[in-house]
């Protein structure tokens, strides 16, 4: 049992290694265009050069600061409004139609409007990221509060729980699993939007690096930057998974 588990774990790694090996071999044999598909070893060397010359670290910092400032500005209000909407049907009646109308709008499409309002500087980029983080956080949190079984509220009321006690002992922990999955969605969206905004209008950040590499046809830089972006996305998910295991022990173990 344990052995097959370990095998399944290593299988994807072996698969990726195999694909890279075939890729490398095909390029060195001249059967694949080194211009469009530079060999993995070339990409790795480029990656190392970008890392040591501090080009990559500076741009990672630029992108990450947009991601996290945007997340804080968007997810915190989303959390608060989500908790309120989950608890109050009146608030839901007011905000549900608004959210249904605004949520499907691709957030990158509002960038021009935001730039008119906030100027072409850093603020408008962060605002777009924030708007994109707001919705998944809000929707998950509200759903998290609403899926709490009514019995738990009855128990709290029966034992004479006051509003604040019900909030901290029932509403918060009861919605936490979905709040955290909202956080994961918000983080992924934040990265997506930060890169998208940088592709369109920025002088630094991973998105602008990708765009610059494409314009100058430096494909090995393009691949190295893409790999970096993917690694960021993966590490976000690992961090949230770790957080979930720490904060929601009653849920994680049930799934395991």
């Amino acid at each position, binding site marked *: 049992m344990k052995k097959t588990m370990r095998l399944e774990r290593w299988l994807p790694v072996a698969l990726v290694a195999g694909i890279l090996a075939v890729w490398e071999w095909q390029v060195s044999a001249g059967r694949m265009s080194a211009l469009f598909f530079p060999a993995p070893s070339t990409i790795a060397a480029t990656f190392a050069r970008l890392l040591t010359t501090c080009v990559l670290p500076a741009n990672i910092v630029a992108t990450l600061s947009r991601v996290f400032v945007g997340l804080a500005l968007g997810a915190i209000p989303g959390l608060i409004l989500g908790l309120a909407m989950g608890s109050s049907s009146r608030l839901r009646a007011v905000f549900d139609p608004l959210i249904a109308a605004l949520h499907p709008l691709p957030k990158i499409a509002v960038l021009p409007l935001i730039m008119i309002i906030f100027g072409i500087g850093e603020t408008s980029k962060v605002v777009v990221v924030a708007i994109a983080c707001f919705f998944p956080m809000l929707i998950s949190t509200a759903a998290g509060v609403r899926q709490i*079984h009514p*019995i*738990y509220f*009855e*128990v*709290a*009321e*029966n*034992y*004479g*729980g*006051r509003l604040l*006690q019900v909030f901290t*002992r*029932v509403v918060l*922990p*009861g919605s*936490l699993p979905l709040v955290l999955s909202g956080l994961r969605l918000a983080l992924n969206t934040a990265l997506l939007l930060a890169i998208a905004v940088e592709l369109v209008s920025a002088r630094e950040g991973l998105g602008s690096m990708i765009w610059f590499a494409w314009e100058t046809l430096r494909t090995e830089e393009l691949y190295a930057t893409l790999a970096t972006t993917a690694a960021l996305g993966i590490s976000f998910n690992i961090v949230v998974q770790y957080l979930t295991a720490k904060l*929601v*022990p*009653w*849920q994680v*173990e*049930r799934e395991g």
Partner: protein
Amino acid sequence: MRFECHNLCKVYLTRDGSVTALDGVTFAAEQEEFVCIVGPSGCGKTTLLKLIAGLLEPTVGRITFDSDAADGRLRSALVFQEHGVFPWMTVLDNVAFGLEMQGVGRQDRYARARAFIRKVGLSAFANNYPHELSVGMRQRVGIARAFVADPQVLLMDEPFGSLDAQTKLVLQEELLRIWKDNRKLVVYVTHDIEEAVLLADRVLVMSGRPGRIREEIQVPLGRPRNLSDRERPEVVEVKLRIWGMLEDEVRQGLEMPT
């Protein structure tokens, strides 16, 4: 402590009109008494408990009692059939929950909770979460929580309804043992006649839809009780009498699906 229900009626409004769950329920319960309410499913037993607990307001009628609480409410503790314990709290926090709501300090409430956790045999699981326990163990947590809160009335809504027969027997004896040392007024709802007769001093038989009290029956058994008591002829006679009253109701319920 004594409480009285006077002519309690509860009408629910639904999309297709109104449903009368309870229609003129009147009874009284005395201090330290163990009252069982039996009735067919859907006769409003749970509604009655929620009315006593103050979770629902009666449409007509009232409940009178002498309260010692500052806000004048009846201090009750309701034990649910399932889902009653919080999945996000450890056994210790679950059992201490009632005291926490009353504002009892951490150390004090943990000490009192631990005493009851020991009484229900869960000391080894105090820091576990409910999903790590069996259904029967979770019901013990719910019962311990209710006793620790030291309510005026203990309300139990088929707490052992989802357990297998053997576990049920063990927990019934356990409940009686704990209750012997912490005599409270208990109102215990069940559809199991056997259980009602084993536990109660007095059995109230309800009719179905709308719920009414059809009859009150004193159980001819002293305490402490044991399993063999249930086979005594006077007890068997009581069980047959209750079943005689319920049989018609159950048949009617089957013929008139709602």
